[in-house]
């Protein structure tokens, strides 16, 4: 199972847990399975209207900012983070 790091702002949903193990082979599956384990998390991570990761949020898989978002593949050994996206300046 992939290890998902939960941002501090969302840890009230996970009972204070900062890291949780989740089944799934894509980020989309992780988000859906997170919701099953911790109802309410998906609302914070997923933009239903756009069918995408919440605007302004970046998903980091194994140390790299994903360019594929929900479509990014993950493995059982993957480490997944949700962080604020950073805009560049020049």
């Amino acid at each position: 199972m992939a290890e998902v790091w939960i941002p501090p702002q969302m840890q009230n949903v996970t009972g204070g847990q900062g890291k949780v193990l989740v089944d799934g082979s894509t980020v989309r599956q992780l988000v859906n399975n997170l919701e099953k384990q911790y109802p309410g998390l998906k609302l914070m991570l997923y933009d239903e209207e756009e069918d995408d990761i919440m605007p302004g949020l970046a998903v980091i898989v194994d140390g790299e900012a994903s360019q594929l978002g929900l479509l990014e593949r993950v493995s059982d050994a993957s480490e997944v983070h949700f962080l604020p996206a950073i805009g560049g300046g020049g």
Partner: protein
Amino acid sequence: MLEYKPNMVLSTQEYKVVGTRPIRPDGADKVTGKASYAADINLPGMIFGKILRSPHAHARIKKLDTSKAEAFPGVRAVITSADLQAPAGRASDLTEGAMVNYKFLSNNVMATDKALYKGHAIAAVAAASAHVAEQALALIEVEYEVLPPVLNAKDAMKADSPLVHERLAAMTTASIRAGGILDDDDPTPGTNTANHFEFRLGDLEQGFKDAEVIVEKETSTVAVHQGYIEPHSGTAQWHEDGSLTIWSSSQGHFTVRDYTARLLGVPVSKVKAIPMEIGGGFGAKLTMYSEPVAGALARKAGAPVKVTMSRTEVFEATGPTSGTNIRVKLGATKAGKLTAAEATLIFEAGAFPGSPVPGGAQCIMGAYDIPNAYIEGYDVVVNRPKTSAYRAPGSPAAAFCIETAIDELAEKLGMDPIDFRLMNSAKEGTRRVTGPLMPKVGFIEVLEAAKAHPHYNAPLEGKYRGRGVASGFWGNNSGPSSAIALVMPDGTVSLTEGSPDIGGSRAAISQQFAEVLGIPFEDVHPKVGDTDSIGFTSNTGGSGVAFKTGIAAITAAESIRQQMIQRAAKIWDVEAGDVEYEDGVVQHKSDPELKLTFKQLAARQVPTGGPIVGSAGVNPPGAGPALATHMVDLEVDVDTGKVTILRFTALQDAGKAIHPSYVEGQIQGGVVQGIGWALNEEYYVSEQGQMMNSSFLDYRMPVSLDLPMIDTVIVEVANPSHPYGVRGVGEVCIVPPMAAISNALYNAIGVRLNSLPMNPGVILEALWKKNGSK
């Protein structure tokens, strides 16, 4: 010690074209005045737009009457916010990825019910001449109810502060979905705090218990402008089929297309954005101001309209960077190992949410291995122009705080400041405070080069002279990008790419393309395509172009290489697997007689199967963070407070410098902007929110006479995610200078200055305070 040479490049791998210094393809036109910038466009029947701006920093617009202006001879159109779309107040994705809150964007382009900063656009006029348009602006009647402005974040966070937006929703999310508008039935009170977020790692309390030395520091910075030489300009022309063409200079013409289409209520397919040459952007031309105004005026007037800002408008109505308040607390063992750190970053966003506080928060501890840490960030709206990105957005102010604190900590420990950084440097596999593991970076190599540099080991003699060191981190970005290459019959290549060229990227992209095909750099003719001619390409920002568009060009070149192999196999009637391509020559693997050069094959492309075209659309991960260390020698005139920079050396991991001269130029430019930010630049704002120095005469930017040669050292630690090892270079160079200069000032006069700018008045005040006199 390194043997001194100016502008050293510490290479680890050499290539044939990559790493050389050819003349940039766009250079001759630029230095001979032939290049066309945004305001150079002139069209038959074109008229001119001017914008009426709020004289107040905070005022309710009670009445707006444009009838007299509309009746003025020569006036062709007058628009207000009613002529723009009124999008929903929620963040949404742009086409193909980026995020924007269109309500805020639209309200920034043209005020609706309130003017939120001095200079906020209220209405616009298009007329036969700019002078007539200006005369007509004076006829627009606006009745304001002047409201008390709130001008800094600390005041704006107080419970009794005036509210910039009465219905702003506070966010407490991990995203930068900063702010939004409360639903009508939501009883939650409004706020000026658009977002608050946190990062935690390890056990902070235990980390500080383990510390034997603790340093706490609070710093503040005020808004500074990017100071590009070319003001914003947009020209719009509607066509009979309902489509719109926009000419402007920007860091992303696809953003211009998307924003303009949304604000004018037309599909993106009906808008073509043509990128003109750009006279600087540094992040501030990632958004736009003039284009939708020109579009709305042109639609109403039935004629092409050009809207060009004055310098004062650029200062008052485009995004400077944030004013900030940052507090850090660092703990370390006596041996010099960091055990804990915490930081609070408060950034002014300007009139609308979305300061670069996420960048500052993610970078503030990025250079270091800290096992226990806490970071929180606040995004706060105030009655100032909406901030926009400025080179490594958020990181320079963050570094000013933490890098001066580290200097203080190293001093308390009796350690050399570079040795302290070496002991605590982040490296591949370091757990970052924000969570992910650090990819391969070259911070240790940069620090070792700094320590071995002759500058660091040179004696610095004389009274009131000091040397300072500081480092900086910036994550760099990638994104989608496109390239199309057409092989010409004479063996040259027309290469169209999607990234506006703001720093020599046409050359850097062409070099990577030429390297793959083994052809001369001069045979590649690059150009930047408009939005109808090239695939979607994300903004020129995040120091990402040499990486992402480089990979697009490499991929297109690899396609051409394969097509060349197949064409040669067809000519020789052999299997393609028996043919190889090396150094611009296609040859049979076992028959040395079968050989064709790139040029020979190019000449035979049509009869062997048609034109050879290579194209690529990519979205590559792994931009690779950048780290830098700067050292500066300076001298203080204690009678006047003037600071003279005596020597400046900037060391930076570039991964692989595709064109070392342009990497050096980026580094030197970043340092110069950092020196200005450190010593002089500031928005000097009255209590009523009026910028009092909105010209280059009064807004003091450094010029060549203020500066010594900025010496550079390019350290190359290849980024494994790029075929040639590229990592972004354009931003991290502005991160260390302010802290390095503050640290040097401390060594020169014995006072730690914790606010920017450290101008002569501030220095004299500090000296008087230190000496107990006035």
